[in-house]
């Protein structure tokens, strides 16, 4: 506890959000997550302006270039490898010949099988993946929470809403996606252009096919919460339902929502890559992290770097969102905030 004097001085400027922020700042993990996330965000927004290689340009002569880190494995030639990468040869025990190891500063983390620069793809792909991941997660979160809270709180709506949830859970995903593409792809493409149109379609699809679990979890928690004393008390003094929900219910179900949010980002980023396989995602030469990871999996033995970088990018994003969520939850919990 701080001294009484300090509390007095600070009290003037204290607001709820100021409190939340100061609590949030003390959470080391959350701050770290915030910094990492900011770096990623900066990388994908400003990165393509700093690293000007076109992610779609095929430099076919430079295909399957290794990342510069492979220089660390060239032993005595390491220094030469970093200064003059094209000159390096190493002994290939299988073929029993000296082979040129393909590294180049023009492609610091390597290229794919058609010679597209991985760094540029990673930076460009991050924009889409982050945008899809965040928006789709928010959409599914809002949908799930609204359905869950309404179903849990208003007994009359519980039956219909939960049966609708059952319906959505039961729908066969792939045929549903094919139907959605058929019905909406060309319309959206004409209305918003190929990229925005497909972006909206993808976010919509991921959003409406992934809210059900959140809804069920939230509803379960609300059902239990509704019978607690403080809600009964609020009810008995005539607090209107919407106020009870926003003031008393929502803050208390924040934990599962935060977990859903974190998991939702990862799911959305991965799902996006799966969608492109049905011909429903972005055009095939449009990089995204999920797509890079999927394409790289085939080359896992040839150039592991192709799976490591996008895998790392996705994991770091999800981890940082997770820690931010943790910090936010702690900061918003008045019982912890006081401590």
């Amino acid at each position, binding site marked *: 506890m701080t001294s009484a004097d300090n509390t007095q001085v600070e009290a003037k400027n204290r607001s709820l959000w100021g409190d939340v922020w100061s609590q949030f700042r003390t959470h080391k993990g959350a701050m770290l997550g915030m910094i990492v996330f900011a770096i990623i965000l900066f990388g994908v927004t400003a990165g393509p302006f700093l690293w000007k290689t076109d992610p779609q340009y095929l430099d076919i002569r430079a295909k399957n270039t290794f990342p510069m880190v492979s220089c660390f494995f060239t032993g005595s030639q390491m220094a030469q490898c970093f200064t003059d990468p094209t000159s390096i040869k190493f002994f290939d025990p299988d073929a029993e010949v000296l082979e040129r190891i393909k590294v180049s500063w023009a492609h610091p983390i390597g290229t794919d099988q058609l010679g597209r620069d991985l760094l540029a793809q990673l930076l460009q792909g991050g924009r889409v993946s982050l945008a899809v991941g965040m928006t789709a997660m928010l959409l599914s979160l809002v949908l799930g929470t609204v359905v869950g809270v309404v179903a849990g709180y208003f007994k009359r709506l519980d039956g219909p809403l939960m049966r609708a949830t059952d319906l959505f859970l039961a729908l066969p995903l792939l045929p549903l996606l094919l139907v959605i593409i058929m019905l909406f792809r060309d319309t959206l493409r004409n209305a918003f252009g190929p990229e925005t149109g497909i972006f909206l379609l993808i976010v919509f699809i991921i959003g409406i096919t992934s809210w059900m679990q959140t809804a069920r979890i939230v509803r379960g928690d609300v059902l239990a919460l509704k019978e607690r004393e403080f809600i009964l008390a609020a009810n008995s003094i005539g607090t209107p339902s919407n106020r009870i929900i926003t003031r008393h219910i929502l803050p208390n179900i924040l934990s599962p929502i935060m977990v859903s949010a974190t998991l939702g980002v990862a799911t959305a980023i991965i799902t996006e890559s799966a969608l492109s396989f049905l*011909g429903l995602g972005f055009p095939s030469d449009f990089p995204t992290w999920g797509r890079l990871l999927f394409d790289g999996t085939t080359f896992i033995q040839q150039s592991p770097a192709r799976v490591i970088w996008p895998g790392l990018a996705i994991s770091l994003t999800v981890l940082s969102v997770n820690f931010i969520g943790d910090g936010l939850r702690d900061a918003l919990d008045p019982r912890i905030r006081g401590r």
Partner: protein
Amino acid sequence: MKLTHFVAASLSVALMSSSALAGSHLAQGRDGNVNIIYWQAVSILNPFLSGGTKDIDASNLILEPLARYDQDGNMIPWLATEIPTVENGGVAEDLTSITWNITPGIKWSDGTPLTAADVVFTAEYCMNEDGGCQQTTSFSDVESVVADDDLTVTVKFSKPKPFPYGPFVGGTSPIIQAAQFKDCVGAEAPNCTEQNFNPIGTGPFKVDEFRANDVVTMVANPNYRDPSKPAFASLTFKGGGDAASAARAVLETGEFDYAWNLQIDPTVLSDMAAAGNGTVISAFGTAVERLMVNMTNPSADLGEKRSTLEGGPHPFLSDPAVRRALSIAIDRDLLAEVGYGAAGTATCNVVPAPAIYASDANDECLVQNIELANQILDDAGWARGADGIREKDGVRLSILYQTSTNAVRQDTQALIKQWWAEIGVETELKNIDAAVFFGGDQSSPDTFQKFYADIEMYTNLFDGTDPEAYMNSWTCGEIPSPENNWLGSNMPRYCNAEYDALAAELSETAAIEDRARIVRQMNDMLMSEGAMIPLVHRGRVSAHANSLNGVILNTWDSETWNVADWTRGE
């Protein structure tokens, strides 16, 4: 690893010498079990109820035709004594009938003899209207099939057939047993699960257990005509997964002996082969990966008339200069190298094989020439706009380029997009799930028949060695349109009276040299007009373990055609 190899090698040498000592007569089933992996699983073992390659290849281990094609595309007698021809009197002078003689003494795996009645029954089974037979093309124009005696069958055609080898030839048209299938004709055909899953055949193997869409286990047929074959006592035919892991199972982990259709990145495949467990084999048939050029206008504004002749010609692809420029801007050798490796060569023909049908009149496009392509477009009046994209009279050279979803195809798309950008053509790529793209569903806008795009890419081929039906694909009557429910195979909507006349002439010509000349002429006509832009002559790629001997990859027939000759060795 090295040591393991040595031990395995010496062991197998020991085994071989001991079996050699046992006697000169080689017994059936001496080599144990052989494992085959197909990355598409077998759904049914009745080739008449499924046209899928995986189902036909699996059923060919059990069922056999009267004659087959060998690896060079020559016809060889299989259950018949010889190939009927006009010379040996097997084919009537007027080309309306063909008579097959069945080799005496062939038995079904249940011990009963194969007779002409079985052959007749097979034809009745497939030609039944209600049966949903998927191989009716083999029986086209067949009027009747009659048994002259126990071992002779005559097929009568409703019109002269210059190429009468449709029925009972090749893996898609094998003989089934009349006694087993007698209650399964017509509408009953799909309900005979037991028969469809466990057909009795004359082939080297018979079914032990069938698990649909998963795995088939087979054992050697004790009544097989050659008592020393097959060398394997049992066979496992596993399905599912993807091509890369199938290749890995043969080439790297050594769990399987044979893997089918390994369409994966060539560098990955060759790296896997470097592990030393197996060999990648390839052979060329007639398959050509090509771009179809839409000669009609696919603009969405046309509504119902979209991509039909009534909708009018394409705004810019109807210009021959544009089609030629698009074609020569492509580096086909690079496409073949990057996407297909040893299993692809650059081609400028839609009929690249067999040799007598292959034309060499179109080889201009084999060499990429961006400069010339630019020149052609400049001369034709297509000038570059501010963004580098050419346009003329307000028409921009902007192409929507669609294909099915497949890693190699998407790589090809990306490469072609870049070359076209160099000649001032803008490309938007689109890929569609194969089941939708090739599905032909009336309500879907994304089918390859509807062709609501400017360019589309896929592979087509013809079975066996006769291209007549294939060449007919590009006659005016084959143009898909709403009137014929989009059924038709003339995707470019190419319509030329001269071409149709050649097609008619082909159907009446019998001499092989004349047929070849006409086919070459038709091919050249299609190529010079640029209705299609061929890219790569594609081969089949498969892999077998080094210990599996006798594999001969055959693109003219089923891949499992000579499984009876497969043996285990080192």
